[in-house]
């Protein structure tokens, strides 16, 4: 045991004293936070080029409405003062509409398409006269462009045209529009928790459910666990392979057994992840307390997170160590990395179904896919209402059995692989090593 701890200690100190650790420590929050900030900053970065659009309105009824709406938008709707009393700044692009009247024998869609291709127009809209009647054709309102990703212009045209069409319909039906809209106004549904009876006979009122409580915390916890595993477990594969390629492994296994070596490295990587997790979780706990939102974090969250993280790291760490030991070249490692990563990604692939129904049969079934248990169970136990009581011992048993099985099997592969040279590993050969004497 002393030798295992000596290896773990060396691995840990070597890692935490490296620049890579500091980069990883600050890199992950910077990457996540920076990504959010970047998105926020990018939201204000709008392409303000004028967008020209031709309107073909054979009826002549809707063009004046669109022209007036565009003028109104360009005068008032695209300017914004950042602060009171400051000069307004343009924040949206100007829409310059022009009425198109075809010349004799000219097909509007063909002629206008050429102008779009030439860069003269952003797009053009064809208003079918049936818009104003009750019998619509299959293309009553068509917008043509070669840049369909710019949706602000067609959405604005659609809004203006629909508003005018509805106004005319109400008018034709001789109905009070305000009355009709109030009659069909939808009722908003809100989601609440459960009320409960106290021992003194009083009632604890149901609380309104929060997205933070029901989605953000389970999702963020699962993502953090996933990222911590991703930070350390695949690294083990590279480390083991590097030690093997540099013949360090041969020196080490003359002093310790291959299993001791693997366990030492595994414990070292768990310690590294626990250090990272302690810093992140500590930071989150401080922040939730500081901003008085700690009631959103269910009791036991941190303990469950750390416990399940240890299981996940032992599972994936041993798996990646074994694969690293079986390879003799980086090329071999890359080909083995893909299937291992797919196994690691299973909880991510199934996230949609689990979020939709955390206690559905698919989510429950996936919880007991051996290597997925820590991540999926973490999400489910933090997402209300949480798993059934029987699932707690079942999930723990699954974690323990899977961890022991993977560490044992990986140890068997490691024992042979760490000294094997030359042959590219295959899954058949790895399985053979697991069951070899």
């Amino acid at each position, binding site marked *: 045991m002393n030798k295992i701890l*000596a290896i773990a200690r060396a691995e840990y100190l070597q890692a935490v004293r490296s620049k890579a650790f500091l980069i990883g420590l600050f890199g992950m929050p910077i990457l996540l936070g920076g990504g959010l900030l970047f998105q926020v900053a990018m939201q204000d970065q709008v392409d303000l080029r004028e967008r020209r659009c031709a309107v073909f309105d054979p009826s002549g009824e809707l063009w004046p409405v669109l022209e007036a709406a565009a003028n109104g938008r360009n005068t008032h709707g695209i300017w914004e003062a950042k602060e009171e009393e400051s000069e307004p700044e343009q924040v949206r692009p100007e829409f310059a509409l022009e009425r198109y009247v075809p010349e004799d024998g000219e097909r509007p869609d063909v002629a206008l398409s050429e102008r779009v291709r030439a860069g003269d127009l952003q797009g053009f809209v064809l208003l079918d006269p049936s818009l104003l009647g009750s019998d619509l054709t299959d293309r009553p309102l068509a917008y043509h462009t070669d840049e369909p990703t710019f949706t602000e212009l067609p959405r604005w045209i659609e809004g203006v045209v629909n508003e005018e069409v509805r106004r005319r319909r109400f008018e034709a039906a001789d109905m009070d529009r305000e009355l009709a809209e109030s009659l069909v106004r939808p009722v908003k549904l809100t989601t609440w928790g459960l009320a409960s009876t106290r021992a003194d006979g009083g009632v604890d009122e149901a609380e309104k459910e929060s997205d933070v409580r029901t989605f953000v915390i389970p999702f963020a916890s699962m993502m953090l666990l996933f990222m911590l595993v991703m930070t350390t477990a695949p690294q083990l594969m590279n480390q083991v392979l590097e030690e093997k390629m540099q*013949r360090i492994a041969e020196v080490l*296994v003359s*002093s310790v057994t291959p299993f001791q070596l693997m366990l030492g490295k595994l414990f070292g990587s768990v310690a590294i992840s626990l250090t990272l997790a302690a810093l992140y979780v500590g930071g989150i706990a401080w922040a939730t307390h500081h901003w008085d939102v700690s009631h959103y974090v269910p009791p036991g969250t941190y303990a469950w997170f750390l416990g399940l993280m240890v299981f996940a790291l032992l599972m994936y760490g041993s798996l990646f160590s074994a694969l690293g030991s079986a390879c003799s070249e980086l090329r071999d490692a890359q080909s083995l990395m893909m299937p291992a990563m797919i196994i690691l990604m299973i909880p991510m692939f199934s996230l949609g179904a689990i979020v939709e129904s955390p206690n559905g049969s698919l989510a429950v079934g996936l919880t007991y896919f051996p290597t997925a248990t820590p991540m999926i169970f973490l999400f489910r136990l933090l997402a209300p209402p949480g798993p059934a009581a029987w699932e707690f011992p079942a999930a723990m048993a699954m974690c323990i059995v899977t961890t022991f099985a993977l560490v044992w099997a990986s140890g068997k592969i490691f024992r042979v692989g760490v000294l094997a040279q030359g042959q590219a590993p295959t899954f058949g050969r790895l399985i053979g090593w697991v069951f070899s004497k």
Partner: protein
Amino acid sequence: MRARVRPGIEPRAHRAILLSTPAVRLANVTKTFGAHTAVRDLSFEVPRGSLYGFIGPNGSGKTTTIRMILHILAPDTGGVEVLGEKGTRAANDRIGYLPEERGLYKKMTVRRLLAYYASLKGMPAADAQREAERWLERLELTDWRDAKVEALSKGMSQKIQFISTVISKPELIILDEPFSGLDPVNLEVLRGAILELVADGATAIFSTHDMTVAEQLCDSVIMIFKGDKVLDGTREEIYAQYGQDTIRVRTDGGAGVLESLEGVEQVLDLGRYQELRVQGDPQELLRTLTQKTNVRHFEETRPTLHDIFIRIAGPEAAREEASA
């Protein structure tokens, strides 16, 4: 030297028992990898306190045998006893192993690396530090103790690897090609250190394909070829067996005139000299030779280990050794 004490045996008696047993004993050991037999029915004993040469061309089975001595590999059949421990890794903390291909953590400092390797042998940190300082000074590397391994020259790295092998004061030192790539100065430093360790009571197994080096250093030699033991004994025993029949000559007639001489079994043309393996009286050979050509040099000499190896293993071995 440290000695493990078995329960129930008085320490001094135990030490006496230990010292009376060979450092390494292999009995009828065979190891195969698939269809390839790496070592076949190999038996030998390495006496305590000896410098034991383990020689043979690359691929002959030396490294496999070393790995079995270290219990990194288990033999298919046969027994391996190391420092009195049979079939277990119990003695491994008392063994220092310098592999042929050096394995050092490039990003570690010299001091931390030596402390780590010593800790894997169960050596207390304070002892490891003291011993590291002593060896760094002995091998003139004190100024480099806080340098990262990647900053060291090849020769320095090899000396650090050597220190990491002997820092835990092992009773048995296994050195696999310890001098490969070393310049003559560092080679002499390392050779001196090895001899010093053996003089202090350690046993050293010295594995090499360079038979000249083994010949200069070792008390006893085992020669292995294609997994088979082809030679085993002390230098004296080996020379007594093979050392009386070699003549070194230089003549005006060159190698061509020698092959037809009676009693000459083999002619090895070394350019300026030819070495002959003869049966019969050398003086008779000299007389015959002077009748045929001018003899510039005639010397009765001992065959080298290399010559003996070629003689035992045949021309195929010479070809394989040349390509190794």
